[in-house]
Structures are given as structure tokens and as C-alpha cells.
């Protein structure tokens, strides 16, 4: 009996000790997880899949350099089927799983739902969550709907349109008639409204057509192309993304229409492959970076990063420079706080943070959590050093927009905890 008691004590102590040890190692080594909430099935699956590869790659690069606070970063992929309501429940699932960070970018309608879900959770729940938005560009998210827990790493639509229209004034002689075609939700509706105002204000041109089409439902753009043709437009402006963009440019191209197309997202994710070298000198994009920026500005380190990504995923290219910024700024913020669970402190560290990105200094504006970064306008060019998505055609910078000009005013009146 006495022996048994001793044995019991011994076992108990050992169990207790081993639990204590495992808790310590768990706290040290369990990964910092980021929920990646994007369409991984359905019409936009290719976009969601490419983004996931970007995040996984960036996380691995960080982990190779020691991770964040010595802990690994892990991307947890969640399929939202491009649905706002599905995304809200995935935010909830992230909270339930103890994940402190969610990232999403495709679809400002989805982003709006996530902002609300995150705000609601953080008001009521002690397990708070931070929303890192790498691509949803509806200006409302950093204006009337701004939130303390939301950070946007892409330039918003107002900034992009300002840059595009400024560039278009330099080509005023060849732009007379502009056709706007956009997806029928907040993102496209904003472009349609704002671009018309900008054309009136700055350009010696008129808007001859303005069409909104249902998102992710149009498989055949030829009726729209025939409208563009009849309007006599020489320039098309579109904020379309994913299949909605690649099918549109493919329809324009296969109909042999002679127009210049100004896009937000013409640089990757299927669009270069859809037109190929025939898009040379006629397909423009406004973006925070493109592959030949590395060549132009001698960014050797970043070029290596790009090439390494290509070796890993030969079918696509490193496209989202903002994911680079986002992951590094998150790392800096967490390490400044020293605690990956104190979401409020991390958010405060990120406010106003400056980061030396390969393209220059980028700043997270404290007032509305909109990043300010240099922007580039580029056009398709078959002679570019790096082609996009194996299409045989890359991009050439036609205008640099310094960070002071790539900005907007904000009406954000943020409620801070």
C-alpha cells in the first residue's frame, strides 16, 4: 500500500511535470495562425488559390528567418465561396479556434461583412481578432465604415482612380470617348460614379458608356463588347477582377476591338494569359508593384524572392506585393508588442507604422488604417524581363506615382478602444 502510494505520487508528479513542460513548449512553439478567408471553389477559385500560395510562401520565408517572436506563422485556409455570410461564420470559426488574425481581400462586399463581424466580436468577446485586408478597395472601408480592427494594405479605389485619371490627362490627345464597365456591387458602383466625376473634372473627353454587370455570372461578354464597339469608345476603364476581367479582355481581344483598356488587376491571375502579347501597349494597370519594377530599380533581393516563388509555383507569378508588406508589418507590430495575443496593442503598434518596403517607405495612416505607398502605372510589354503567368508578355512602367501623390482624404471617425 505504502509502495503504491509512493508510486502514485511519483506518477502524478511526472504527469504534472510533463504537462508543465509541454505547456511551456506549446507556448513557445505553437504557431501564430492567420485565417485566410477567400474563395477556394467556384468561379473565383483561381484567384483565391493564387493568394493562398502567396501567403504560404511569405509565411515560409518569415519562418526561415526565425518566424515572429521565434514562433512559426501558419496560414489556415478557409473557403468562403465568395459569400459574405459564409465569411462571417468563418470569422466566428477563427475566433473559436483561438486565431487572432484574419486576412481577406477579394470582394469589398465580403470585406464589409468581415469588418462588421470583427467589430461585433471584439465588442462582446475577450478573444479579439484583427482583420488584415490585402485587396478589398472600396473606399468606404476606410471612410464612413472604418474600423479600428481593420487595416488595408492595398491602395483604395479613390487613390487608384486619382492616379489613373492623372495619367490619362497626359494622353489626352488619344482619349476622347471612355467606356466604363464594372461589376455590379459596391466596388464597381464606386468606380462608375467616381470616374465620371474625374472625367468631367480633368479630362477633355466624355463617358460614352457606363455598364454594370452581375459579378461572376457573365460567361459571354460579347454583348457588352458590341456595346463598346457601338459607343465608338477608344478607351475602356474597368475595375473587374478574376474571371470577370480575363473573360472581358478575351472578348474584347477576340472581337478585334481597337481600344486601350485601363484596369486595376490586368497584371496577373489569368488576365495576361487571356490576351497574351496582343495586349501589348493597349492594356494598362495601376498597381503598387509589378515584376519589372525590380529590374528598373535594381531590387536584387526582391527579384530573388520573385524568382524563388516562380520556381515553387511555375504556373503563376508573385503578384501581390502588398502581401509582402502586410506580413512584414504584422511581424514588426507583434514583435514591438512582444505578445501575439494582445490584439489591441498590436493594432495600436500598426497605426502610423512606417515600413521600408522594397519600393520605398510605406506608412499605415493612423487616422483610417489605409496604407500609403508608391504606385505604378504600367502597360503590357512583350520585351519586359519577366512575363506574367507564362503569357510571353510582362509590364513596363509608364508612370511612377510618388507616395505623396498616391493619397486621398478620409472622413473616418474611428472609435478606439
Amino acid at each position, binding site marked *: 500500500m505504502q509502495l503504491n502510494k509512493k508510486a502514485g505520487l511519483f506518477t502524478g508528479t511526472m504527469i504534472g511535470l510533463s504537462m508543465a513542460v509541454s505547456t511551456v513548449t506549446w507556448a513557445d512553439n505553437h504557431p501564430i495562425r492567420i485565417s485566410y478567408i477567400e474563395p477556394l471553389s*467556384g468561379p473565383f477559385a483561381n484567384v483565391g488559390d493564387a493568394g493562398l500560395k502567396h501567403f504560404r510562401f511569405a509565411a515560409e520565408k518569415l519562418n526561415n528567418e526565425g518566424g515572429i517572436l521565434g514562433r512559426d506563422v501558419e496560414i489556415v485556409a478557409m473557403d468562403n465561396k465568395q459569400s459574405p455570410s459564409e465569411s462571417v461564420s468563418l470569422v466566428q470559426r477563427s475566433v473559436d479556434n483561438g486565431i487572432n488574425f484574419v486576412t481577406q481581400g477579394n470582394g469589398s462586399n465580403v470585406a464589409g461583412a468581415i469588418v462588421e463581424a470583427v467589430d461585433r466580436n471584439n465588442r462582446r468577446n475577450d478573444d479579439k481578432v484583427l482583420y488584415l485586408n490585402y485587396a478589398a478597395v472600396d473606399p468606404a472601408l476606410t471612410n464612413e465604415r472604418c474600423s479600428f480592427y481593420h487595416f488595408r494594405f492595398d491602395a483604395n479605389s479613390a487613390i487608384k482612380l486619382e492616379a489613373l485619371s492623372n495619367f490619362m490627362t497626359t494622353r489626352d490627345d488619344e482619349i476622347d470617348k471612355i467606356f466604363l464597365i464594372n461589376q455590379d456591387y459596391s466596388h464597381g458602383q464606386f468606380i462608375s460614379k467616381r470616374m465620371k466625376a474625374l472625367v468631367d473634372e480633368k479630362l477633355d473627353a466624355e463617358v460614352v458608356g457606363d*455598364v454594370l454587370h452581375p459579378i461572376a455570372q457573365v460567361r459571354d461578354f*460579347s*454583348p457588352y463588347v458590341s456595346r463598346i*464597339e457601338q459607343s465608338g469608345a477608344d478607351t475602356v476603364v474597368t475595375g473587374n477582377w478574376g474571371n470577370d476581367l480575363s473573360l472581358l479582355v478575351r472578348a474584347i481581344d477576340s472581337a478585334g476591338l481597337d481600344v486601350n483598356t485601363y484596369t486595376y488587376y490586368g497584371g496577373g491571375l489569368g488576365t495576361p494569359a487571356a490576351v497574351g502579347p496582343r495586349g501589348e501597349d493597349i492594356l494598362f494597370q495601376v498597381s503598387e508593384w509589378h515584376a519589372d519594377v525590380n529590374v528598373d530599380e535594381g531590387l536584387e533581393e526582391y527579384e530573388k524572392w520573385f524568382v524563388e516563388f516562380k520556381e515553387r509555383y511555375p504556373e503563376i507569378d508573385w503578384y501581390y506585393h502588398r502581401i509582402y508588406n502586410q506580413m512584414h508589418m504584422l511581424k514588426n507590430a507583434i514583435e514591438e508588442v512582444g505578445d501575439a495575443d494582445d490584439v489591441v496593442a498590436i493594432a495600436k503598434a500598426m497605426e502610423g507604422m512606417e515600413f521600408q518596403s522594397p519600393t520605398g517607405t510605406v506608412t499605415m495612416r493612423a487616422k483610417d488604417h489605409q496604407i500609403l505607398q508608391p504606385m505604378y502605372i504600367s502597360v503590357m510589354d512583350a520585351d519586359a524581363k519577366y512575363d506574367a503567368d507564362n503569357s510571353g508578355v510582362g509590364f513596363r512602367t509608364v508612370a511612377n506615382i510618388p507616395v505623396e501623390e498616391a493619397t486621398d482624404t478620409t472622413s473616418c471617425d474611428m472609435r478606439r478602444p
Partner: protein
Amino acid sequence: MFETIAYSILNGVLYGTLLFMMSSGLTLIFGMMGVLNFAHASFYMLGAYFAYTLGLATGFWVALFLAPILVGAAGALVERYGLRRVHQYGHVPELLFTFGLAYVIEELVALFWGTVPVPYKAPASLDFTAFSLMGLDYSMFKVFILLVAIVMFVGLWLLLKKTRAGLVIQGALSRPDMVGALGHNVPMVFTFVFAFGCALAGLGGVVGGIQFVTDPGMAFMMGPIVFVVVVLGGLGSVPGALVASLIIGILQTFFLSINFSLAGAIGSLGIEDSGFFGVLWHMETTRIAAVLPYLLLVLTLIFRPRGLFGKREA
């Protein structure tokens, strides 16, 4: 205006012929066997994926013939080992069976080929401009789709009306006991009709996958509209399916191609763009185009339940 009409008719006919390829098989199955096949568009999707995969090995032209045969074989298996067993319990279990099957096929396709669209492209021999109409080019592939649809329609019509096999099929569907008494294997005829209908959808997929996008979502994209065609055209009527496809194709394209709203035509009359009436007053035709087919479906069922060419009620 003339341009708009010409474009709409041309684009609409192209879209309509694709709809016809998918719906002709469904109208046979739906009208003749009484099976409401929810998985029909899934066979359309299988056609596209089979053709893409085969095409990598054999080239497009062989795949054009092989893929529909494979889809037909898959359809025959589904009928023989699935539908026939469910059939004895009535129409609702049949409907549920095909409903589930549609999801199973979608998930299987996603498992085998991934959720990302596959790069299924027109063969080089068809990838050039066939003709231009008032500044817009039309590729040879679109002309090819048109040709395939015409061949399909004529072939179907001849098969059903002019051959002995067609007579047996028609007989087996309306008087199965009589046809059975004459020594024909009626269950076999049913399997054949189902397989044939699936093969037609598969053929639609072979060309439709190139014209649109080949991804696991393509079946659910096309599924509902195919039913509209079948109801509008009349159950079991192949000419009806053709006419209905063309009507839907042309109407939808026309609504997309013109820029019209009541407010634009008559003037806003001080009506705000809000509230039920105001929204309707300012609604542009492009935004109506998406609901148009379903509006037609509802109106057909209310005012002419047997459809345009149908002989009995839906």
C-alpha cells in the same frame, strides 16, 4: 439601332445554340422518361473535363467524338444502377437522387481536376477570325459551334422521326407495355435514351467549356437555365428546345446590348431612384437581363403550361 439588332441576333444565336445543345438531351429525358434530371448540367460539365483531359493526349478532334461517348457511358451506368432502382419508388426519390448526384459529380470533379479553372482552349485550327461584322470579329470557333448545333438538330430529328429506332423509342415512352409485348427490351430503350441525352449534354460541354470557362462551378451556372429552355419549348419537343434556346439567347443578348430604361426613354419625370416604383422606373435593361429567363419560366407556367411546342402539360 440596326447594328444593335444585328449584333444581338448574331450573339444571341451563338448563345442560343449552346443552350440548345445542353437542353435537347434534357428535353428527351424529361419529356419522354418523366425524369426531372437535376444532374443534367453535370454531364455537360463532365463533357468539358473529359474533352480537356483526352485532348491533352489525342488532340481536340478525337476528343470531340470520344468525350460525348464516355459521358454517355457514364449516363448509362447512372440509369442502369441508380435511376432504375429508384424509379419504382416514384418521381420524388428520382428527383432527390439526381439532385444528390449533381453535388457528387461536382465534388468529384473538384477532387480530380481541382477547383481552379483548367486551361481548356480552342484548337489552333479553329482559333482564327472567320469574318467581321461592322467592326467586330467573329472567330472560327463560334462558327464551328453553330455548325455542331445544326448537325445535332438535324441528326436528332432524323433519328426520332425517320428511323425504326426512333419509332421504337417514341413507342416505348408512351406505350411501354405494348412495345414490350412486341418483343423490344423496354428498360434497355430507357437506358439508351438516358445515355443518349447525357451524351448530347457532353457534346455541349466539349464546345461550351471552350467558349466559357471549364471549372467545377460550370454545372450550377448552367443548370437552372436549361430547365427554363425545356419548359418554354415544351416537354419532349426537340424543335421546341431549339426555338426556346434561340428566343432566350436573343432576348437576353438584346437586353444586354441596348441601353434602355423607362426613365431614360420617357424622362425621369421627377421620380427619385428609390422605392419600389422608382427603382423600376430607373432600372436599366442590362440589369433585367439576368432575371429574364426565369421571368419567362414563370410566365410560361402560368399562361401556357405545355410550353411552345409541347403536347402535354408540365
